[in-house]
Each structure stands twice: as structure tokens, then as C-alpha cells.
């Protein structure tokens, strides 16, 4: 055991320990949230908490369904808007774009990812909300008298506004992942396809996209996971209303993260209030972990 070997071993152990600490943080957070939300589970049944829309803490009613549905509405809209656009952009960047265009656009997209959410929120309030109020809502809700377009909320603060803002926020994530996985398709395959007389578009459609389909799904899921957790930007445009059960894209939606941010630390005096809010946080955390595991799992398989 020379001193050099000993140093080597020591370095290895210390680094392992630090890595372990970082990893255990996740479990500590899960444990902490769960233990704090236990007290509400002891009083109200899980069914009441998850499937009731009645949120009246002062009356001891802690139904979270409204917030869970709000999350579903807003993220679904965001995904429906952003996925087709992101996929096409990703394909264009990876396959068609001249190098100079690519070099110009890529940093711009990364910049989108780096903008602070609160700026998106302000922009949403100034631009998107009036857009929904003055154009989209009168046009769509007036013409399409069926689910999910019927609503009597004419303010513009809506699930749709939240969804549009979120869509812009998840663009960069989906685009950069798609761009990356398209690059993993070997050049020989493209050449083979082209030499058989296929056009560029046919090659992309039948060879490239076919190979990367699982990767695209992973990209969507990772975008979702970002969308599910986004707080302040959505909170500023979705019209978080406690009384409305969202039945339309034009209704107000109150997603979980916005709800937690708005109510945590308030009325610590009401029994179980903070326990209910922490349960909401716990549910949100589980959602995020699930999406991330799914997304990365698929991505790893694709990359192999």
C-alpha cells in the first residue's frame, strides 16, 4: 500500500460519497414531502383528496381534483401546440438547413430555453391573453359550439393562454433532443435510401423518422415533464380560479405548481392546510419523476 495508491483510493471514495449524497437528495425530498403529507392522509381518504373538486380548507375540504385537471388541461394544450412545430423544426435543422442558418438558429433556440419564466409570464399577460380574448375565443368559441370550445369565460385568462405560453417554453427542449437523435442515424442508411431513387423527403420520412420514432416520443415526454412543473409563467396567465371546474380550453385552469406557489405558507393556522398543500407537492413530484424516468429510459434505448 504505497502512499500514491492510498491517495487514489481516497479520491475514489470521497467522490463516490459526494455523488451518493447528491443522489440521496432526491430520496430525502420524497421522504420529507411524504412524511409531512401523511397527516392529511390520516384524516381524509385518498379518494376524497384526489377525486373531489371542493377546496374549502376552512370547512376541512381539501379536494385536489381541480388542480390535477388544471395541470392536465394546460400541459395537453401545450403538447398539442408544440409537438408538431418542434418535430418539423428539428427535422429542418438536422436535415435541410444550410450550415449558416443552422448556426444562427441553434443559439436562438437555446436562448429561448434560458429566458426566465417570469418574463414568459409577463409576455403572456401582455400579448397572449389579449390575443385569446379578442381573437381566438370569439372566433373559435363562436364557430365551434362543442367540447372543448364552449366556455363563458371571456377574459382571455385561460387554459389556452397557459398552454400557448408553455408551448413556447418547451420548444427548445423538444427541438434540441430531436435534433440530437436525428444526428445518430448513420449516414450510410440515408445514402442507401437515396441511391434507390428516393427523394430527400421520402428518405426523411421512411428511413430517418422511422428509426428515431421512440426518441421523438421521449422528447415529447421530457417536454411534458418541464411543462408539468412550470409555475410562475402559467400562474400569470391561466386565470387560476378556485371555483371553476375546467371544461373547455377557454376556461380558467389552476395547475398544481401554481396552486402550491399561491397557497404554501398561508394560513398555517388552519389544521391540515399545509399538509394538503404538501400532498399536492408530493403528487407533482411523483408526476415529474415518472415522466423523466420514462423519457430518459426511452432515450437511452434509442442511443444504444
Amino acid at each position, binding site marked *: 500500500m504505497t502512499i500514491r495508491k492510498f491517495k487514489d483510493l481516497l479520491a475514489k471514495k470521497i467522490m463516490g460519497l459526494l455523488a451518493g449524497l447528491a443522489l440521496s437528495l432526491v430520496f430525502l425530498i420524497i421522504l420529507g414531502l411524504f412524511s409531512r403529507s401523511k397527516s392529511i392522509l390520516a384524516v381524509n381518504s385518498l379518494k376524497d383528496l384526489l377525486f373531489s373538486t371542493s377546496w*374549502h380548507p376552512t370547512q376541512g375540504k381539501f379536494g385536489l381534483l381541480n388542480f390535477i385537471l388544471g395541470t392536465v388541461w394546460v400541459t395537453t394544450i401545450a403538447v398539442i401546440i408544440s409537438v408538431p412545430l418542434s418535430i418539423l423544426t428539428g427535422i429542418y435543422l438536422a436535415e435541410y438547413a444550410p450550415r449558416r442558418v443552422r448556426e444562427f438558429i441553434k443559439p436562438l433556440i437555446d436562448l429561448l430555453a434560458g429566458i426566465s419564466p417570469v418574463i414568459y409570464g409577463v409576455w403572456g399577460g401582455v400579448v397572449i391573453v389579449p390575443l385569446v380574448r379578442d381573437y381566438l375565443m370569439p372566433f373559435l368559441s363562436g364557430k365551434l359550439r362543442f367540447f372543448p370550445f364552449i366556455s363563458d369565460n*371571456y377574459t382571455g*385568462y385561460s387554459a389556452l393562454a397557459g398552454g400557448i405560453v408553455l408551448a413556447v417554453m418547451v420548444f427548445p427542449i423538444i427541438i434540441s433532443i430531436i435534433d440530437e437523435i436525428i444526428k445518430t442515424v448513420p449516414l450510410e442508411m440515408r445514402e442507401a435510401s437515396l441511391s434507390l431513387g428516393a427523394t430527400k423527403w421520402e428518405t426523411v420520412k421512411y428511413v430517418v423518422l422511422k428509426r428515431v420514432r421512440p426518441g421523438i416520443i421521449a422528447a415529447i415526454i421530457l417536454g411534458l415533464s418541464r411543462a408539468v412543473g412550470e409555475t410562475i409563467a402559467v400562474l400569470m396567465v391561466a386565470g*387560476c380560479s*378556485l371555483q371553476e371546474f375546467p371544461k373547455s380550453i377557454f376556461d380558467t385552469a389552476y395547475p398544481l405548481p401554481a396552486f402550491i406557489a*399561491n397557497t404554501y405558507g398561508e394560513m*398555517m393556522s*388552519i389544521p391540515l392546510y399545509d399538509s394538503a398543500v404538501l400532498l399536492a407537492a408530493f403528487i407533482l413530484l411523483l408526476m415529474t419523476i415518472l415522466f423523466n424516468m420514462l423519457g430518459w429510459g426511452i432515450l437511452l434505448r434509442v442511443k444504444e
Partner: protein
Amino acid sequence: MKKFFILISLIGLISPISFAKELQGTITLSGAWAIYPTAVAWAEAFKKLNPKVQIDISAGGAGKGAADAIAGLVDIGMVSRDPDPAEIKKGISPVYILHDAVYPVISDKNPALPDLLKKGINKKTWFDIYISGIITKWDDIIGRKIGKSVHVYTRSDACGAASSWAAYIDKKQEDLKGVGIYGDPGLLEAARRDPIGIGYSNFSYVFTREGKVVKGAKLVPVDSNENGIADADEIYNDRESAVKAIRAGRYPATRKNYFFTKGKPKGLVKEFISFALSDEGTKIVDEVGTSLSISKADRGKVLKGLE
């Protein structure tokens, strides 16, 4: 020698503090946006008198102030609503320090404005707009056909303004209907920009520095004596008339603001609160203009309670 004595006594008269024990230490405050500007001004003045004192103030809403004070994270929680019995049970002693009011706000482009300025809106109607949701059209409020629906706005974040507005119609914030907007400025902006919207906002936000109502907004007269007419002292176009009505007890949606301390305020914290309630502190409140100082009689009562 005589001159010397006069000089000494003069110095004593001018600066009674310099002969007292010099105060030192740190005071931390957090809480309501409504109290924040006044508290900052108090802190500045207090620090001028006692250079060795450090005062840290952060805003974040009444709920945060109450929670921080209960958890012992700060010396003083600034809370812009009445204390909850459960908070008192947790050892909070509330000190009545300021008061202000919450005003219903509409856009000055609202087609119902002339009618509202004539009739005002009474408590029952407010209840039907904000709680039961029976009223969805301006027609039902003013009794004349204009065929416009009401866009009801409320606060999404837990706050004193919403609690007080709900308290005026004998309810809680969780019962208020409407589209939730984050923060005082956000809600005021939404109500101001939407020609058929209605919202509510704090005294500290609805008036500009000059004491006029914020541009583009109008305060809806609250028909507090239920006579179906908006009386002269129910219509406010500037801070002055609003203050007068509050002082005369004519405006119903007022609220008291408190300093929450864990247990009775002692030592430095007590000194600071006494300063805030002194004549000098009161002058500062009126200079800042975002809150109302409490009457001399009330100040005397509160100060007695501190002993």
C-alpha cells in the same frame, strides 16, 4: 456659568435620546405588500435616530408574514388582515398599527359607469357577483339593458386584500368566484384594461403618488347605507375623499393592519413599535401615503397594551 447651564439644558431638550442608553441590535420583518412601503420608511427614520440598529424588511404577502412570525423566522410579521383565532393560540400577539381599505375597481371605459356612479352597488349585489355567481351580466347590476357579461376578477394568491374583500361580504377568500390573477398590480391591471371587467385592489395601489385614482381605473361606489343611491361620500376620485370617508366610518371594506410578534413585544422590537405609533411615526405614514395612520385615541390604547 448660567449660559453654560442653559446650553446644556437646551441640548438636553433637543436630543432626549442621546442621553438615553443607545439601542443596538437587529430587527427583522416580513409580510404584507400593503404595509411594506410604510415599514421601510419607519425603518429608515428609526435607523437615523439609532445608528447602531439594523432593520431587515422583506415583502411576500400577509400569509408569509404570519407564517414567519409563528415559525420565529422574523421578529415582526406584517399582516394586513385580522388575526385568526388559531394564530392567537400559537402565541401571536397582534399589534394594531395601521389601517387601509380595499376598493372595487372597473375600467373607465365601462359602459355601465354612469349608472354605477348614480346607484353604487350594495352588499347583496356584491355577494351575488362574487359568491353565489347569480349575477353574470351588467344588466342585472344596473337594471338597464347593455347586453354585456361581467368579467369577474379575483386574486389567485393568498392575500390580505382578498381576505378583506371577502370579509366585507361575510365570506373567506376561498369562496370568491372569478378569474384568479396573481398579485395586487396584476389584478388592478386586469380590471383596468378590461372594459367589462371588475376587480378589487388595495388603498395603496388604487391612488397615484399625487393622490388621484390610477389612470384608466374608476372606483365603484359601494352603497353602504343601502339607499340605492351613490351618495357624495360614497364616490371617491382621489385619496383625500377616500381617507375622509374611512375616518368617518362611512366606508365598509376597511381592514386593520397588524404587526404580529410571538409573545408580547419586548426590548428593541417594542421600541420600534412605539416609534411607529409615535407622532413622528404617524407623520411618516401620511408622507408615504400608501396606508392610513390610526387615530390618536387608538394609538394610545395600543401603546398602553404594550406595557
